[in-house]
């Protein structure tokens, strides 16, 4: 899974800590999400998408290997 979180976060001018606080998670969770190392729950994915004013579809990109 790949994410465009970093790009959207930069567009909004948010820090990782600010995003973490906005969605109620640890900053390291945001770090692992941005690296694509953590698969979030649907709820967290939706919360992050809302915080970054985008949609889950735009934020998380799934390839053939994820099927």
């Amino acid at each position, binding site marked *: 899974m790949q994410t465009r979180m970093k790009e959207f976060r930069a567009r909004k001018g948010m820090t990782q800590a600010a995003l973490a606080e906005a969605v109620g998670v*640890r900053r*390291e*969770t945001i770090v692992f999400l941005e690296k694509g*190392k*953590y*698969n979030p729950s649907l*709820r967290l994915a939706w919360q992050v998408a809302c915080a970054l004013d985008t949609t889950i579809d735009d934020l998380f990109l799934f390839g053939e290997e994820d099927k």
Partner: protein
Amino acid sequence: MLDKKAMKQMWFGILFGLLFIVAAVAAWLVSGGTADTTGLTILVVLGILMIILTVVKIHADRRYFLVMTVIGVVMVGTGALGMLTGTIPLEGGSLITGGLIMIFCGGIWLARSKEKRIVDERSQKIGTYGTAFSWYVTFMAVVILYWLDMLDVLAVQASTILGSLMFLMIFSALFFQWYYNRQGDVY
């Protein structure tokens, strides 16, 4: 205000702690008051600890951990005093052990950074998987020890085995949780 899930978790922990206490009281009653008080006291202390730890963990508030540490200090003090003067009918050793556990758990939490005190879905997931893998490791150890004993390869006391399993469970859980925390996720 706690959500429905947290309330359910809290009541489950409290119920489990109460079971320890009920088991101790039942054992004492069934034996007609002749059961080993040391073992029963340990069971009661474990039950109380479980209830306190559950409530504290669910609320994850600094004040709860502070209270927990203070209770731990009081338990150690009371236990030590009871052992020295012999005025307390409870086993001083159990009180001191329980108190030290509370000081350790409360102290660790209080020493953590604000960031680390947040319990999010990732930390919960890693915590749960770490505990589950630790259960598998301990189960494998139990199977191995059973066959070593059955085949007369190993001859150790039950208390040694129980002590080893207790430490194996705790440290393997801590290891898996540390490992998955570094990995980012559980798979």
